[in-house]
């Protein structure tokens, strides 16, 4: 058994060396495909599984969209939700323990040494800091007192501190000026990946500081909320309460006859805002199916390529096949040999692909394409990539191997 494997290995390596161009094309196809898949997987993994500062997902539901429809005319209006809606409806749900409210980030300009610095700020409520667990490098968050007083205070990100005050200097107690308004810095938090755009910001300010009329009666607005249940077991109840409550919410505008908003899981909240989702459907299944379909399509091309290369190779090796059959290899033994050879090739491609991925991720990370996003290869991503590789090796090897084993010995031996 082991002798056979060793023999196959020798043959496989020799065959790879003999046809350098084919080998290059095959290996390039496999490793490049794998690299793209791995980088995509790392990105999706980042999007879905990155936690900081949102560590309590199993206790949380996310309200990120309000949609109003005119079903007769077929048009709709969709945006974030209003503070009024969160305050008047959502905050009264029985199973809700805490609710973090924040607005979408808005840009403001600051100037450091005559250079413009764009600072994206968010307004939040006090519980925002209790629901999310930001890592404070120095200082502390604002609380109900600062909210009530509309204090001109701010929590800034590490990156903002470095850009505005200088790297590694203390910022607490100093003033930061954005759009010519001065805020006293009371805390500095570690950077949040921009992929988590509900939580990422350069500066956080008490919402009461804003001149916006928070009590304006409306459903559409500029807020997002995280609803925290008392325990993970309470989450389904909280979700139901939200739905029951929504059934009673009527559009305020006569133009619309339907209104949708949901308390989603984190993943659903992402897919609902993707083109696959809308007010009615969370789109999670569509997104998952789409990703699997894309993966399949993406693997299909190199598979077909490898299958055709393998079939060409069979003809070159008909003498070997004939000899092996004449000296006692059965058809199944030959299939086995060829599949193993193909696996050796794809595993080589796989290892190369992983190395390429590490390189690609390094460049993506150092180019800082998306601010503060640091992609990495988790063991899960590596595991899935190698699994994909193994599957790929089997699929692209089995059919040519079967063809090869059917080869007539007499004509195989005549070929040379």
């Amino acid at each position, binding site marked *: 058994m*082991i*002798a*056979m494997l060793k*023999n196959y290995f*020798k*043959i496989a390596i*020799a*065959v790879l060396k*003999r046809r350098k161009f084919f080998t290059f094309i095959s290996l390039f196809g496999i490793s490049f495909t794998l690299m793209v898949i791995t980088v995509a997987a790392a990105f999706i993994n980042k999007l879905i599984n990155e936690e900081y500062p949102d560590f309590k997902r199993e206790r949380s539901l996310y309200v990120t969209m309000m949609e109003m429809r005119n079903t007769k005319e077929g048009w709709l209006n969709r945006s974030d939700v209003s503070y009024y809606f969160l305050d008047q409806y959502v905050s009264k749900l029985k199973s809700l323990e805490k609710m973090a409210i924040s607005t979408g980030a808005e840009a403001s300009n600051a100037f450091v040494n005559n250079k413009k610095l764009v600072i994206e700020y968010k307004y939040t409520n006090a519980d925002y800091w209790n629901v999310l667990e930001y890592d404070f490098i120095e200082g502390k968050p604002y609380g109900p007192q600062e909210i009530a007083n509309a204090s001109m205070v701010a929590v800034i990100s590490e990156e903002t501190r470095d850009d505005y005050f200088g790297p590694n200097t203390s910022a607490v107690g100093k003033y930061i000026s954005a759009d010519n308004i001065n805020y006293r810095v009371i805390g500095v938090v570690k950077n949040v990946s921009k992929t988590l755009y509900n939580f990422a910001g350069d500066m956080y300010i008490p919402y009461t500081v804003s001149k916006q009329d928070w009590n304006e009666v409306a459903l559409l607005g500029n807020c997002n909320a995280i609803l925290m249940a008392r325990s993970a077991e309470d989450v389904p109840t909280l979700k139901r309460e939200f739905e029951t409550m929504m059934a009673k919410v009527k559009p305020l505008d006569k133009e619309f006859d339907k209104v949708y908003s949901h308390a989603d899981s984190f993943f659903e909240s992402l897919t609902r805002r993707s083109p696959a989702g809308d007010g009615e459907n969370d789109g999670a299944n569509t997104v998952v199916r789409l990703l699997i379909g894309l993966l399949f399509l993406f693997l299909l091309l190199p598979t077909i390529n490898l299958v055709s290369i393998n079939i060409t190779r069979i003809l070159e090796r008909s*003498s*070997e096949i*004939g*000899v*092996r*059959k*004449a*000296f*006692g*290899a*059965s*058809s*199944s*033994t030959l299939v086995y040999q060829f599949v193993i050879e193909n696996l050796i090739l794809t595993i080589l491609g796989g290892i190369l692909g992983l190395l390429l991925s590490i390189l690609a991720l390094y460049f993506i990370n150092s180019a800082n394409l998306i601010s503060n996003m640091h992609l990495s290869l988790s063991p899960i991503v590596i595991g899935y990539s190698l699994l994909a590789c193994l599957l790929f090796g089997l699929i692209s090897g089995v059919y040519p191997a079967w063809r090869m084993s059917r080869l007539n*010995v*007499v004509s195989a*031996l005549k070929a*040379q």
Partner: protein
Amino acid sequence: MIRLENIEKVYRTDTVETLAINGINLHVQKGEFLSIMGPSGCGKSTLLNIMGLLDEPSKGQIRIDNQDISRYSDKQMANFRNEKLGFIFQSYHLINDLQVLDNVELPLLYRNSSAQSRRKLAAAALEKVGLSNRVKHFPTQLSGGQRQRVAIARAIVGEPQIILADEPTGNLDSAMGNEIMDILINLNKNEGTTIVMVTHDENMAHKTDRLVRLFDGSQVQ
């Protein structure tokens, strides 16, 4: 040892039927060295392939070592070839990607034997054909005569009772051809191996125990 009864082989394409072998009856004794002669296309290689279970007859029965082969499965057939038969081809058919020793070991890979015993048997077979000093070479580094000797070592390494040789000297000059013939004759005399050889060469054929001539698929002598 090998008994062919009423063997017929027809090659069919969409339009033509070619009768390659027509009612051959042949009995090869145990320990016999038989040669088959005839002009090109007379069906002698086809006959050899049928004896070697590489090709199926369209009609007729083969018994080898008193066993009816016709109902064997692919796996049984493979095992049977591995244990009982050794092949030598005109164009050697060595695997160029493998060293000489690995080439000779090949039949033993399809048996249960340890790496050590395989190395030993392969080395012994190479010794018999006088190539002990070429173990680590690749086939492309050898002359034609040397390649054919490697092929003989491969054919005998599993100690088969029957060796089927398809024009083993066909690609060699007469000196080298005689060398190869000497090895085969020794094998037949000393080890008692049954040998069936297809050849074009009258001189080679006359060195064997018996000569069978084919013409247009039929036995004429």
